[in-house]
Protein backbone atom coordinates (compact mmCIF):
# COMPACT_ATOMS: atom_id res chain seq x y z
CA UNK A 1 0.00 0.00 0.00
CA UNK A 2 1.37 3.36 -0.99
CA UNK A 3 1.44 5.61 2.06
CA UNK A 4 1.53 8.87 0.13
CA UNK A 5 -1.38 7.85 -1.99
CA UNK A 6 -3.39 6.61 0.99
CA UNK A 7 -2.78 9.83 2.84
CA UNK A 8 -3.78 11.73 -0.23
CA UNK A 9 -7.02 9.84 -0.55
CA UNK A 10 -7.80 10.11 3.13
CA UNK A 11 -7.05 13.81 3.11
CA UNK A 12 -9.10 14.26 -0.02
CA UNK A 13 -12.02 12.50 1.59
CA UNK A 14 -11.83 14.54 4.76
CA UNK A 15 -11.35 17.82 2.97
CA UNK A 16 -13.93 17.00 0.35
CA UNK A 17 -16.62 16.27 2.89
CA UNK A 18 -15.60 19.00 5.33
CA UNK A 19 -18.00 21.60 3.88
CA UNK A 20 -20.88 19.22 4.48
CA UNK A 21 -21.94 20.38 7.90
CA UNK A 22 -25.17 19.39 9.53
CA UNK A 23 -26.19 22.97 10.21
CA UNK A 24 -25.98 23.67 6.52
CA UNK A 25 -28.89 21.43 5.86
CA UNK A 26 -30.83 21.95 9.06
CA UNK A 27 -33.30 24.09 7.14
CA UNK A 28 -34.29 21.09 5.14
CA UNK A 29 -36.18 19.90 8.19
CA UNK A 30 -38.83 22.31 7.08
CA UNK A 31 -38.49 21.77 3.38
CA UNK A 32 -40.90 19.68 1.35
CA UNK A 33 -38.04 17.36 0.55
CA UNK A 34 -38.29 15.56 3.84
CA UNK A 35 -39.60 12.12 3.23
CA UNK A 36 -42.33 10.75 5.43
CA UNK A 37 -41.57 7.37 6.90
CA UNK A 38 -45.20 6.75 7.38
CA UNK A 39 -48.18 4.97 6.40
CA UNK A 40 -51.09 6.82 7.81
CA UNK A 41 -54.12 6.18 9.83
CA UNK A 42 -57.12 5.81 7.61
CA UNK A 43 -58.43 6.88 4.27
CA UNK A 44 -61.09 9.50 3.88
CA UNK A 45 -64.41 8.22 5.02
CA UNK A 46 -62.89 5.68 7.33
CA UNK A 47 -61.20 7.99 9.73
CA UNK A 48 -60.39 6.81 13.17
CA UNK A 49 -62.39 8.81 15.65
CA UNK A 50 -60.66 9.38 18.92
CA UNK A 51 -61.83 10.71 22.19
CA UNK A 52 -59.30 11.62 24.83
CA UNK A 53 -60.65 12.51 28.19
CA UNK A 54 -57.63 13.83 30.02
CA UNK A 55 -54.38 15.47 29.11
CA UNK A 56 -51.62 16.72 31.33
CA UNK A 57 -51.85 17.86 34.88
CA UNK A 58 -53.99 20.97 34.69
CA UNK A 59 -53.44 21.91 38.30
CA UNK A 60 -49.73 22.62 37.75
CA UNK A 61 -49.40 23.23 34.03
CA UNK A 62 -49.58 26.62 32.35
CA UNK A 63 -52.64 27.21 30.24
CA UNK A 64 -52.47 25.73 26.79
CA UNK A 65 -52.56 28.55 24.24
CA UNK A 66 -53.27 28.40 20.51
CA UNK A 67 -52.33 30.55 17.54
CA UNK A 68 -53.65 30.37 13.97
CA UNK A 69 -50.17 30.23 12.47
CA UNK A 70 -47.63 27.54 13.25
CA UNK A 71 -44.15 27.97 14.63
CA UNK A 72 -41.52 26.25 12.50
CA UNK A 73 -40.24 23.22 14.36
CA UNK A 74 -36.48 22.86 14.67
CA UNK A 75 -34.45 19.72 15.03
CA UNK A 76 -34.23 20.48 18.73
CA UNK A 77 -38.02 20.73 18.88
CA UNK A 78 -38.32 17.39 17.18
CA UNK A 79 -35.84 15.86 19.57
CA UNK A 80 -37.62 17.35 22.56
CA UNK A 81 -40.98 16.16 21.26
CA UNK A 82 -39.72 12.62 20.86
CA UNK A 83 -38.10 12.71 24.25
CA UNK A 84 -41.29 13.95 25.87
CA UNK A 85 -43.56 11.52 24.08
CA UNK A 86 -41.25 8.62 24.88
CA UNK A 87 -40.68 9.88 28.37
CA UNK A 88 -40.06 7.21 30.94
CA UNK A 89 -41.93 9.49 33.30
CA UNK A 90 -45.10 9.25 31.32
CA UNK A 91 -46.78 7.11 33.90
CA UNK A 92 -46.13 9.72 36.55
CA UNK A 93 -47.62 12.52 34.51
CA UNK A 94 -51.14 11.64 35.47
CA UNK A 95 -51.66 10.17 32.05
CA UNK A 96 -52.56 6.70 31.11
CA UNK A 97 -53.21 5.82 27.53
CA UNK A 98 -55.34 3.03 26.26
CA UNK A 99 -56.02 2.11 22.67
CA UNK A 100 -58.95 0.02 21.63
CA UNK A 101 -59.36 -1.04 18.02
CA UNK A 102 -57.83 2.14 16.71
CA UNK A 103 -59.74 4.30 19.10
CA UNK A 104 -57.53 5.69 21.80
CA UNK A 105 -58.49 7.14 25.11
CA UNK A 106 -56.46 8.52 27.96
CA UNK A 107 -57.30 8.83 31.59
CA UNK A 108 -55.55 9.73 34.82
CA UNK A 109 -53.33 7.11 36.31
CA UNK A 110 -55.36 7.18 39.47
CA UNK A 111 -58.44 6.17 37.55
CA UNK A 112 -60.46 9.08 38.85
CA UNK A 113 -61.94 9.71 35.42
CA UNK A 114 -63.95 6.89 33.90
CA UNK A 115 -63.13 5.70 30.42
CA UNK A 116 -65.54 7.09 27.86
CA UNK A 117 -67.73 4.72 25.99
CA UNK A 118 -66.91 4.39 22.33
CA UNK A 119 -68.20 2.10 19.59
CA UNK A 120 -66.90 -1.41 19.57
CA UNK A 121 -64.85 -3.34 22.05
CA UNK A 122 -61.45 -4.88 22.10
CA UNK A 123 -58.20 -5.36 23.85
CA UNK A 124 -56.97 -2.25 25.58
CA UNK A 125 -53.33 -1.36 25.38
CA UNK A 126 -51.65 0.52 28.12
CA UNK A 127 -48.72 2.80 27.50
CA UNK A 128 -46.33 3.50 30.33
CA UNK A 129 -43.01 5.12 29.96
CA UNK A 130 -42.93 4.51 26.25
CA UNK A 131 -43.52 0.81 26.79
CA UNK A 132 -46.77 -0.57 25.56
CA UNK A 133 -48.28 -3.56 27.22
CA UNK A 134 -51.61 -5.22 26.90
CA UNK A 135 -53.64 -4.81 30.04
CA UNK A 136 -55.72 -7.85 29.34
CA UNK A 137 -58.86 -6.01 30.37
CA UNK A 138 -61.58 -5.68 27.80
CA UNK A 139 -63.05 -2.21 27.49
CA UNK A 140 -66.43 -1.59 25.98
CA UNK A 141 -66.65 1.62 24.08
CA UNK A 142 -69.41 3.46 22.30
CA UNK A 143 -70.31 6.92 21.01
CA UNK A 144 -67.36 8.91 19.74
CA UNK A 145 -68.90 12.28 20.43
CA UNK A 146 -68.52 14.96 17.82
CA UNK A 147 -66.32 12.92 15.58
CA UNK A 148 -68.62 12.17 12.71
CA UNK A 149 -66.01 9.78 11.40
CA UNK A 150 -66.31 6.07 11.10
CA UNK A 151 -64.57 3.94 13.64
CA UNK A 152 -62.45 1.13 12.18
CA UNK A 153 -64.25 -2.16 12.12
CA UNK A 154 -63.59 -4.81 14.71
CA UNK A 155 -60.46 -6.73 13.88
CA UNK A 156 -58.80 -3.84 12.11
CA UNK A 157 -57.21 -2.54 15.24
CA UNK A 158 -54.88 -3.61 17.95
CA UNK A 159 -56.23 -7.10 18.20
CA UNK A 160 -55.23 -8.01 14.67
CA UNK A 161 -51.87 -6.29 14.73
CA UNK A 162 -50.53 -7.53 17.99
CA UNK A 163 -48.98 -5.23 20.52
CA UNK A 164 -47.78 -1.82 19.37
CA UNK A 165 -44.04 -1.27 19.38
CA UNK A 166 -42.32 -0.51 22.63
CA UNK A 167 -40.72 2.56 21.14
CA UNK A 168 -42.08 5.44 19.16
CA UNK A 169 -42.10 5.08 15.38
CA UNK A 170 -40.46 7.81 13.28
CA UNK A 171 -41.77 11.32 13.58
CA UNK A 172 -44.19 12.13 10.78
CA UNK A 173 -45.21 15.68 11.63
CA UNK A 174 -44.89 18.19 14.41
CA UNK A 175 -47.32 21.07 14.57
CA UNK A 176 -46.25 23.79 16.99
CA UNK A 177 -48.49 26.76 17.65
CA UNK A 178 -49.11 28.88 20.69
CA UNK A 179 -47.43 26.98 23.46
CA UNK A 180 -48.72 23.61 22.39
CA UNK A 181 -47.73 20.95 19.95
CA UNK A 182 -49.11 17.96 18.15
CA UNK A 183 -46.58 15.28 17.26
CA UNK A 184 -47.49 12.34 15.05
CA UNK A 185 -45.22 9.30 15.02
CA UNK A 186 -46.06 6.50 12.63
CA UNK A 187 -44.80 3.49 10.79
CA UNK A 188 -46.54 0.97 8.61
CA UNK A 189 -48.50 -0.45 11.47
CA UNK A 190 -48.94 2.00 14.29
CA UNK A 191 -49.57 5.70 14.74
CA UNK A 192 -48.82 7.51 17.98
CA UNK A 193 -50.41 10.92 18.29
CA UNK A 194 -48.93 12.95 21.09
CA UNK A 195 -50.19 16.27 22.43
CA UNK A 196 -47.53 18.52 23.94
CA UNK A 197 -47.34 21.59 26.11
CA UNK A 198 -44.22 23.75 25.89
CA UNK A 199 -42.36 23.97 29.16
CA UNK A 200 -38.96 25.56 29.41
CA UNK A 201 -36.73 24.09 26.74
CA UNK A 202 -38.86 21.02 26.36
CA UNK A 203 -42.40 19.78 26.48
CA UNK A 204 -44.83 18.28 28.89
CA UNK A 205 -46.64 15.34 27.45
CA UNK A 206 -50.38 15.41 27.15
CA UNK A 207 -52.43 12.53 25.91
CA UNK A 208 -50.76 10.00 23.65
CA UNK A 209 -53.09 8.13 21.35
CA UNK A 210 -52.17 4.83 19.78
CA UNK A 211 -53.98 3.56 16.74
CA UNK A 212 -53.36 1.22 13.82
CA UNK A 213 -52.29 2.71 10.52
CA UNK A 214 -53.58 1.99 7.07
CA UNK A 215 -52.29 3.02 3.68
CA UNK A 216 -51.82 6.58 2.64
CA UNK A 217 -53.65 7.79 -0.44
CA UNK A 218 -52.03 6.23 -3.50
CA UNK A 219 -50.56 9.47 -4.78
CA UNK A 220 -50.01 13.04 -3.70
CA UNK A 221 -53.44 13.98 -2.53
CA UNK A 222 -54.90 16.58 -0.27
CA UNK A 223 -56.55 14.45 2.34
CA UNK A 224 -57.11 14.29 6.03
CA UNK A 225 -56.19 10.81 7.08
CA UNK A 226 -56.87 11.01 10.77
CA UNK A 227 -58.88 13.15 13.06
CA UNK A 228 -59.62 13.15 16.71
CA UNK A 229 -61.16 15.09 19.52
CA UNK A 230 -60.10 15.33 23.09
CA UNK A 231 -60.48 17.33 26.25
CA UNK A 232 -57.53 19.13 27.74
CA UNK A 233 -56.99 19.11 31.47
CA UNK A 234 -58.67 22.50 31.86
CA UNK A 235 -61.84 21.18 30.30
CA UNK A 236 -61.51 22.76 26.90
CA UNK A 237 -62.15 20.61 23.86
CA UNK A 238 -59.21 19.91 21.59
CA UNK A 239 -59.45 18.78 18.00
CA UNK A 240 -56.66 17.60 15.75
CA UNK A 241 -56.24 16.36 12.23
CA UNK A 242 -53.36 14.92 10.26
CA UNK A 243 -53.19 14.55 6.53
CA UNK A 244 -51.35 14.50 3.24
CA UNK A 245 -50.81 17.32 0.78
CA UNK A 246 -49.98 17.37 -2.94
CA UNK A 247 -46.49 17.89 -4.28
CA UNK A 248 -45.41 21.49 -4.11
CA UNK A 249 -47.61 22.31 -1.15
CA UNK A 250 -45.86 24.15 1.65
CA UNK A 251 -48.88 25.00 3.75
CA UNK A 252 -52.46 24.01 4.25
CA UNK A 253 -55.18 26.38 5.32
CA UNK A 254 -57.98 25.09 7.46
CA UNK A 255 -61.30 26.95 7.63
CA UNK A 256 -63.89 25.83 10.11
CA UNK A 257 -67.18 27.44 11.12
CA UNK A 258 -66.68 29.84 14.00
CA UNK A 259 -62.92 29.35 13.98
CA UNK A 260 -60.11 31.63 12.83
CA UNK A 261 -58.53 30.47 9.60
CA UNK A 262 -55.51 28.43 10.58
CA UNK A 263 -52.46 27.41 8.61
CA UNK A 264 -50.15 24.47 9.08
CA UNK A 265 -46.79 23.70 7.53
CA UNK A 266 -46.45 20.83 5.09
CA UNK A 267 -43.28 18.82 5.55
CA UNK A 268 -42.59 15.79 3.42
CA UNK A 269 -46.11 15.89 2.09
CA UNK A 270 -47.60 15.64 5.56
CA UNK A 271 -49.23 18.07 7.92
CA UNK A 272 -51.02 18.07 11.22
CA UNK A 273 -52.90 20.75 13.08
CA UNK A 274 -54.68 21.10 16.38
CA UNK A 275 -57.12 23.67 17.63
CA UNK A 276 -59.57 24.34 20.44
CA UNK A 277 -63.04 23.28 19.59
CA UNK A 278 -64.95 20.36 18.31
CA UNK A 279 -64.11 18.26 15.32
CA UNK A 280 -66.90 17.91 12.84
CA UNK A 281 -65.52 16.53 9.58
CA UNK A 282 -68.75 17.26 7.73
CA UNK A 283 -68.03 20.99 7.80
CA UNK A 284 -65.26 23.38 6.87
CA UNK A 285 -62.69 23.31 4.14
CA UNK A 286 -58.99 22.81 3.72
CA UNK A 287 -56.77 24.23 1.01
CA UNK A 288 -53.26 23.26 0.00
CA UNK A 289 -51.05 26.23 -0.87
CA UNK A 290 -47.70 26.45 -2.58
CA UNK A 291 -44.86 28.73 -1.55
CA UNK A 292 -46.45 31.62 -3.44
CA UNK A 293 -49.75 31.17 -1.68
CA UNK A 294 -51.44 29.77 -4.76
CA UNK A 295 -54.05 27.15 -4.19
CA UNK A 296 -53.09 23.67 -5.36
CA UNK A 297 -56.12 21.76 -4.13
CA UNK A 298 -59.09 22.15 -1.88
CA UNK A 299 -61.42 19.82 -0.08
CA UNK A 300 -64.78 20.82 1.37
CA UNK A 301 -66.07 19.58 3.67
CA UNK A 302 -62.78 18.54 5.14
CA UNK A 303 -63.67 14.87 5.16
CA UNK A 304 -65.62 13.87 2.12
CA UNK A 305 -67.14 10.46 2.09
Amino acid at each position, binding site marked *: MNTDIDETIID*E*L*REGFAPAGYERTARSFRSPSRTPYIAAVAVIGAVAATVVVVGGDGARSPALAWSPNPTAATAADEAAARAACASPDLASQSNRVVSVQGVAVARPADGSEPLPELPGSGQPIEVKGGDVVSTGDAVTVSGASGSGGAVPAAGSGAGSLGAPPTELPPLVSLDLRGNGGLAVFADDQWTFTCMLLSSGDGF*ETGPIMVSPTNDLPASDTLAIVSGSQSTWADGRSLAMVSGTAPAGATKVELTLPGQPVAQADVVGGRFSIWWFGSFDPSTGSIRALDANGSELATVSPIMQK
Partner: protein
Amino acid sequence: MARRIPSEFEAFYREAKDPCFRALLATVGSAAEADDLLAESFTRALARWDAVRHHDRPEAWVVRTALNLHRDRWRRSQRQQRLLQRRESVTHDDVVDPSLMAAVQALPERQREVVALRVLLGLSAEQTGEVLGVDPGTVGTHLRRGLAALRLALHGPAEPSTNTTTQEVLQ
Protein backbone atom coordinates in the same frame (compact mmCIF):
# COMPACT_ATOMS: atom_id res chain seq x y z
CA MET B 1 -42.92 17.89 34.14
CA ALA B 2 -40.56 19.78 31.89
CA ARG B 3 -38.39 17.77 29.53
CA ARG B 4 -35.19 19.65 28.93
CA ILE B 5 -32.41 18.64 26.62
CA PRO B 6 -29.48 17.70 28.85
CA SER B 7 -26.50 20.00 28.49
CA GLU B 8 -24.31 16.94 28.08
CA PHE B 9 -26.37 15.89 25.08
CA GLU B 10 -26.16 19.37 23.63
CA ALA B 11 -22.38 19.29 23.90
CA PHE B 12 -22.28 15.87 22.31
CA TYR B 13 -24.60 17.04 19.55
CA ARG B 14 -22.42 20.03 18.74
CA GLU B 15 -19.34 17.85 18.50
CA ALA B 16 -20.83 14.90 16.71
CA LYS B 17 -23.38 16.26 14.30
CA ASP B 18 -21.01 17.25 11.50
CA PRO B 19 -18.86 14.10 11.48
CA CYS B 20 -22.00 11.98 11.69
CA PHE B 21 -23.54 13.91 8.84
CA ARG B 22 -20.47 13.52 6.64
CA ALA B 23 -20.28 9.82 7.30
CA LEU B 24 -23.95 9.40 6.45
CA LEU B 25 -23.69 11.63 3.42
CA ALA B 26 -20.86 9.51 2.08
CA THR B 27 -22.79 6.35 2.82
CA VAL B 28 -26.23 7.22 1.47
CA GLY B 29 -25.16 9.76 -1.16
CA SER B 30 -27.92 12.25 -0.47
CA ALA B 31 -27.76 15.25 1.82
CA ALA B 32 -31.49 15.25 2.36
CA GLU B 33 -31.49 11.57 3.18
CA ALA B 34 -28.54 11.96 5.53
CA ASP B 35 -30.24 14.94 7.09
CA ASP B 36 -33.44 13.01 7.65
CA LEU B 37 -31.71 9.96 9.03
CA LEU B 38 -29.57 12.00 11.34
CA ALA B 39 -32.51 13.95 12.69
CA GLU B 40 -34.29 10.75 13.53
CA SER B 41 -31.28 9.04 15.02
CA PHE B 42 -30.35 12.04 17.14
CA THR B 43 -33.86 12.25 18.48
CA ARG B 44 -33.65 8.59 19.39
CA ALA B 45 -30.28 9.18 21.00
CA LEU B 46 -31.79 11.94 23.08
CA ALA B 47 -34.71 9.78 24.08
CA ARG B 48 -32.26 7.13 25.29
CA TRP B 49 -29.54 9.47 26.40
CA ASP B 50 -29.21 7.88 29.82
CA ALA B 51 -28.02 4.73 28.09
CA VAL B 52 -26.38 6.15 24.98
CA ARG B 53 -24.19 8.52 26.99
CA HIS B 54 -22.36 5.55 28.42
CA HIS B 55 -21.47 4.26 24.96
CA ASP B 56 -17.78 4.35 24.16
CA ARG B 57 -18.51 6.45 21.10
CA PRO B 58 -22.10 7.72 21.19
CA GLU B 59 -21.73 8.97 17.63
CA ALA B 60 -21.23 5.36 16.57
CA TRP B 61 -24.61 4.59 18.14
CA VAL B 62 -26.16 7.48 16.24
CA VAL B 63 -24.75 6.41 12.90
CA ARG B 64 -25.61 2.79 13.44
CA THR B 65 -29.19 3.80 14.17
CA ALA B 66 -29.24 5.96 11.06
CA LEU B 67 -27.88 3.17 8.88
CA ASN B 68 -30.48 0.78 10.23
CA LEU B 69 -33.18 3.32 9.47
CA HIS B 70 -31.77 3.70 5.99
CA ARG B 71 -31.94 -0.02 5.36
CA ASP B 72 -35.45 -0.17 6.75
CA ARG B 73 -36.53 2.53 4.38
CA TRP B 74 -35.40 0.63 1.35
CA ARG B 75 -37.30 -2.38 2.48
CA ARG B 76 -40.50 -0.42 2.43
CA SER B 77 -43.09 -0.20 -0.24
CA GLN B 78 -42.64 0.93 -3.82
CA ARG B 79 -44.71 3.97 -2.98
CA GLN B 80 -42.26 5.13 -0.41
CA GLN B 81 -39.34 4.37 -2.70
CA ARG B 82 -40.95 6.64 -5.24
CA LEU B 83 -41.15 9.32 -2.59
CA LEU B 84 -37.48 8.87 -1.86
CA GLN B 85 -36.63 9.13 -5.52
CA ARG B 86 -38.68 12.27 -5.89
CA ARG B 87 -36.84 13.82 -3.02
CA GLU B 88 -33.51 13.19 -4.66
CA SER B 89 -34.33 16.01 -7.07
CA VAL B 90 -34.28 18.60 -4.31
CA THR B 91 -31.24 17.61 -2.31
CA HIS B 92 -28.26 19.80 -1.56
CA ASP B 93 -25.52 17.40 -2.46
CA ASP B 94 -23.36 19.90 -4.28
CA VAL B 95 -21.44 20.69 -1.10
CA VAL B 96 -19.15 17.82 -2.00
CA ASP B 97 -17.22 17.74 -5.25
CA PRO B 98 -19.27 15.65 -7.66
CA SER B 99 -16.31 13.60 -8.81
CA LEU B 100 -15.41 12.72 -5.24
CA MET B 101 -19.01 11.92 -4.38
CA ALA B 102 -19.36 9.82 -7.51
CA ALA B 103 -16.23 7.88 -6.67
CA VAL B 104 -17.46 7.21 -3.14
CA GLN B 105 -20.91 6.22 -4.35
CA ALA B 106 -19.37 3.83 -6.86
CA LEU B 107 -17.86 1.80 -4.04
CA PRO B 108 -19.66 -1.34 -2.95
CA GLU B 109 -21.95 -0.58 -0.03
CA ARG B 110 -19.86 -2.18 2.66
CA GLN B 111 -16.64 -0.54 1.47
CA ARG B 112 -18.45 2.78 1.37
CA GLU B 113 -19.70 2.31 4.93
CA VAL B 114 -16.29 1.35 6.21
CA VAL B 115 -14.58 4.29 4.52
CA ALA B 116 -17.21 6.65 5.91
CA LEU B 117 -16.99 5.33 9.45
CA ARG B 118 -13.22 4.99 9.57
CA VAL B 119 -12.15 8.09 7.67
CA LEU B 120 -15.00 10.58 8.12
CA LEU B 121 -16.32 9.60 11.53
CA GLY B 122 -12.97 8.55 12.92
CA LEU B 123 -14.04 5.28 14.43
CA SER B 124 -11.50 2.58 15.13
CA ALA B 125 -11.59 -0.71 13.27
CA GLU B 126 -13.15 -2.32 16.33
CA GLN B 127 -15.81 0.36 16.67
CA THR B 128 -16.55 0.24 12.96
CA GLY B 129 -16.87 -3.51 13.15
CA GLU B 130 -19.30 -3.15 16.01
CA VAL B 131 -21.46 -0.73 14.07
CA LEU B 132 -21.52 -2.88 10.96
CA GLY B 133 -21.59 -6.25 12.65
CA VAL B 134 -18.31 -7.50 11.17
CA ASP B 135 -14.95 -8.27 12.71
CA PRO B 136 -12.15 -5.69 12.69
CA GLY B 137 -10.13 -7.70 10.21
CA THR B 138 -12.96 -7.50 7.72
CA VAL B 139 -13.16 -3.78 8.34
CA GLY B 140 -9.49 -3.47 7.44
CA THR B 141 -9.98 -5.42 4.25
CA HIS B 142 -12.91 -3.30 3.16
CA LEU B 143 -11.01 -0.14 4.03
CA ARG B 144 -7.98 -1.09 2.00
CA ARG B 145 -10.08 -2.08 -0.98
CA GLY B 146 -12.22 1.02 -0.69
CA LEU B 147 -9.30 3.38 -0.54
CA ALA B 148 -7.60 1.59 -3.38
CA ALA B 149 -10.72 1.91 -5.49
CA LEU B 150 -10.98 5.60 -4.66
CA ARG B 151 -7.34 6.10 -5.50
CA LEU B 152 -7.89 4.45 -8.84
CA ALA B 153 -11.05 6.40 -9.57
CA LEU B 154 -9.59 9.77 -8.63
CA HIS B 155 -5.96 9.47 -9.66
CA GLY B 156 -5.61 6.45 -11.84
CA PRO B 157 -3.16 3.60 -11.24
CA ALA B 158 -0.30 4.38 -8.87
CA GLU B 159 3.05 2.79 -8.30
CA PRO B 160 3.50 1.22 -4.88
CA SER B 161 6.45 2.62 -2.96
CA THR B 162 6.21 1.71 0.73
CA ASN B 163 4.85 -0.96 2.97
CA THR B 164 3.03 1.32 5.41
CA THR B 165 -0.50 0.14 5.94
CA THR B 166 -3.71 2.07 5.77
CA GLN B 167 -4.25 1.30 9.44
CA GLU B 168 -1.06 3.17 10.28
CA VAL B 169 -2.04 6.10 8.13
CA LEU B 170 -5.34 6.50 9.96
CA GLN B 171 -3.63 6.35 13.30
